[in-house]
């Protein structure tokens, strides 16, 4: 056995830390050098246990230093009268110049989009930022292990929750919520908007974090023609001009038929005839999705769509790099005068 009173040394070091104005100095104490030096003098079979003890002392002392430093730091801090309008002997603080203030272009555009849809009769709800597999996939007719899930590159939490990869994660909720209204002779009309996530590397045209707006309409007699008309109507309002549209077949497990929807690039953002902009995915809601929400697909039909917000903003201002949006750089933000 070693002859060192490790516990006693530890107590003495801790006391020194507690009373020191510069506690970090204690780490340089000769006791540490002696303790570490002693390890090699011990019989090999005792070294491990002793070394461990010494390390524990070091860890305890370091923790004590940290808390002592915080204590010292805090002791220097002068408390203020938090109920006062300004500091003693000072004047009323001024707000920053109003002309410096800017709203983020994405939240502004989202408000604009939501505003148009509410005027068209769609309720607006914000999308969740953490959700479960059922809402993200299961309730939307994505069988488990289906390759279509791959396209979404979802993040997962330890608990198996998902940062939603599309605002469709709200669709099942919207349908369930609207069921009673539908069955009372009304219809379901709602948009969900918000932040979504995909596990992608970031570059000028890819982001793992972005914004979407999703829409849902269900009634007794909704048609695909209605969907295309509604979407064109939205974009015509948004761009303030008549627009041509085109579609392309697409596959989404939660729609049948599923389409990609494009508009001819509006003149207001420098478009020429024949230039097309893919705007969103859309389709008639798959009967399985209606059934999952307790809605009888033999009585009711619906359509849904979802598209990104960044694209609208980038086209509007000519923004070249997707990474600017979440950069929090004033050089970027102050370009968007309110």
């Amino acid at each position, binding site marked *: 056995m070693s002859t060192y009173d490790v516990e006693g040394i530890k107590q003495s070091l801790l006391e020194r830390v507690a009373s020191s104005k510069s506690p970090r100095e204690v780490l340089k104490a000769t006791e540490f050098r002696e303790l570490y030096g002693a390890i090699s003098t011990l019989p090999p079979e005792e070294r491990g246990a002793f070394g461990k003890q010494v390390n524990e002392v070091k860890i305890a002392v370091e923790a004590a230093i940290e808390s002592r430093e915080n204590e010292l730091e*805090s002791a220097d801090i002068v408390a203020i009268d938090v109920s006062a309008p300004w500091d003693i002997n000072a004047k009323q603080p001024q707000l920053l110049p109003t002309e410096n203030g800017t709203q983020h272009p994405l939240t502004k555009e989202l408000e604009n989009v939501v505003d148009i849809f509410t005027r068209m009769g769609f309720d607006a709800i914000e999308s969740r*930022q953490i959700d479960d597999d059922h809402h993200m996939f299961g309730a939307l007719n994505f069988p488990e292990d289906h390759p279509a899930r791959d396209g979404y590159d979802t993040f997962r939490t330890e608990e198996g929750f998902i940062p939603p990869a599309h605002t469709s994660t709200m669709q099942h909720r919207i349908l369930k919520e609207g069921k009673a209204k539908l069955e009372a002779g009304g219809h379901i009309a709602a948009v969900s908007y918000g932040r979504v996530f995909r*596990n992608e590397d970031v570059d000028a045209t890819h982001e793992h974090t972005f914004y979407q707006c999703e829409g849902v309409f269900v009634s007794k007699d909704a048609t695909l023609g209605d969907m295309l008309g509604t979407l064109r109507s939205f974009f015509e309002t948004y761009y303030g001009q008549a627009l041509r549209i085109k579609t392309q077949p697409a596959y989404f497990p939660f729609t049948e038929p*599923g389409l990609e929807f494009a508009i001819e690039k509006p003149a207001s953002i420098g478009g020429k005839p024949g230039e097309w902009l893919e705007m969103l995915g859309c389709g008639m809601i798959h009967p399985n999705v209606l059934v999952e929400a307790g809605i009888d697909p033999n009585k009711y039909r619906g359509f849904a769509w979802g598209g990104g917000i960044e694209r609208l903003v980038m086209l509007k201002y000519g923004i070249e790099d997707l990474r600017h949006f979440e950069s929090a750089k004033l050089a970027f933000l102050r370009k968007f005068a309110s």
Partner: protein
Amino acid sequence: MIISVNWLKKFTSINGTVDELATLIGARLVEIETVENIGEKYQGVIIAKVVECGPLENSDHLNVTKIDDGGVVADIERDENGLVQVVCGAPNVRAGLSVAWLPPRSVVPETFGDAEPFVLGAKPLRGVMSNGMLASAKELDLYDDHSGILEIDKDAAPGTLFAEVYELNDYLLDIENKSLTHRPDAFGVIGFAREVAGIQGLPFETPTWLQGLDAAVQNDGTATAPAVVIEDPSLSDRFQAVVLSGVDESAHSPIQLQTYLSRSGVRPISASVDISNYLMLLTGQPSHAYDYDKVKAIAGDDFTIRVRLAREGEKLVLLDGKEVSLDTADVVIAAGETAIGLAGIMGGQSTMVDGETKTVLYEAATFDLYRMRSSQMRHGIFSEAVTRFTKGIPAPLSNPVLVEAVSMLQHYTGAQATSDIVQDYPSTRQQIVVRVSEKKINDTLGTHFSADDIASLLGNVGFEVTFDELEASVTVPYWRQDIHIAEDLIEEVGRLAGFDTIALTVPRRDFVAVKPGDFDQLRSVVRRSLVRAGANEVLTYSFVHGDILKKAGQSPDNAYRITNSLSPDLQYYRQSLTPSLLTNVFQNIKAGYGSFALFEANKVHQKSDGATSESVPIERDSIALVVADAKKKGAAYYEAKRVLDYALGVLGISLDYQPLQDQQDAVYAPFEPKRSALVTDSKTGDVIGVVGEYKKSVQKAFKLPEFSAGFEINPRQLLKSIEAIGIQYRPLSRYPGTERDICFQVKQSVQYGEIVKSAEQFLNETGLIVTVSPLDIYQPEEGDTKNITIRVGLVSYEKTMTNEEVTAVIDGLITTVTERTEGKVI
């Protein structure tokens, strides 16, 4: 996926130009990313015949040739027989050969489209004139073979254009195949052609060989085929194999076939490999050849091919020489007991076909797409074959492909089938019949198709449609396993006819006014107020590095952790917005912004908040702001507080500020208790949030300037506050008011709020219209007191107040305040 238009044309006629075709395919089938005109690069390439060939003097490898180009190339030096002299270094050049000649002024196809394409000339080589060159497959941009010149294997008169001979006046469509994940049939040229016919309104005729679902192979029965056993029908719907003897593995496939492979991005190798790839490109059905003798040797007494799950600890060396440790979820092909291939993904080295192979066991099978997908991901192998298996290859397809493969192998390699096809075919899939009414189709699409229209649109692509009145019964072809319900057929009808032909309408419904939700409206107002207060709205990521949490004094244990993030920067859900804002202060100061405020309105998540009734984590809405000034001194706290008072004042909310004490929530963690306040609604007493300066350790960790402070509030709580405000308007008085300034001297420990609170309490009982506002807060350097001066405004509803009346009120106020604060008036 790349599709050759000329290849398509072998199976369907195409109306209109390639651009029109591409537009039509885009609108009715799948997005086309690019259309490449490959014919352009072969414009100058001529078929020529080598008439004379002899070695060039003083060269060990060059030959001088005289070629016959049929006299088609103008302005060129010819001999008395009209032949053109070309020097050639290829080892296989010889008289009698038909070759591809690149005459002077033509561009080497391999360099076509380069910044500096290589243009040929007529120039002497070692003193001997050479006109242009004789081309290799590589120079012709066909495939990577530069070992010699291309030997034309078709009868073509000298002078014919090379492109014409090999159908190279072609366009390649680059297909965005992600949107075809549910369409294994479209992963073959024939299936794609069927769709191209359908969207043009043309009936499609399936090639006869592909219709032979039950065809057998002629064979002499001299070989013993193994037994085939699929151990579990969920692994594979069907496994077929046949024995072929006398395969010449060195035989080459015809150049025509090779060019179609290379147009599709597949490298030609040998006839037997090319045939397998060719049929896969045509139909989507992969196939695989094993060395029969090796399989037999491995199988030993138990000559059985088994499709089974891999065993615990089982290993396999693949064709590429890599050894993989198999997972018990992997599907393997076994000879007897021994695994010889990773099913659908890659064969094994132990049964590899090589130059010595004389007899092959040729397989065509299908495997469970989900198992293929997980094995592919697990082993990171992405081949053309497994890409197709993960789409779900239909079981009936293997037989006609196997029979056609045997026929082609016989033709091009001299092999002979020496056994019947052996198979295990446990699939229980029934033929799918879907019923749909004409009305349902039209009601869903908003169209007016007749029963005949519908029957013809679907019939063109292989559906069998019979109408009983207006109710259709549709038999789904085996290659469309994706069609199960009426809606699937509705899509097919709309798509084949063109969604773009549907008239646009808007839903019929009552006029209903909808307004944005209360919370959305409130958040907009706060946003605009903060903007008016000169702040800049930011959006920052919802996920942060664990170090950011620690720097802010928050525990990562209380944050939802992302397990598969690409970067440690995105490992945890944030618990509050403040740390994200603090992360961005320094970069802006460094960029030259001396004074600014950043704010964000977003959601945050803490594990300790628990779950909703849907068992998903509770989300919090939050609004946070940070003010920073690189140069200013003094208490930044008051600047943040001023912004908060202003922004919420716009909503009519008034706030109380109390010292922060032992608040445990992670939101408070970055704030220094001695210089921060708990913010409450002065009406309801509800906690709204926190405002303050940051702990020294936080300032240091985030490199904040000394003058920095901020707040973080719960905007949902504001909704309740607004409800509680009610209507604040009080009628105006007809009488003038008066103001008095009062200076209280109190102990330093007395809070400004106590003075104002007690003054207001007193005044509110007078029935007057009252205002109390701060004028000055002075604390001399010596002593332990401070002076707080307030201005009191009084207005009566009943009369103009006299001096005495005012003094009475003020005296009362002074008594109340001084008693409460143990101060005095000076």
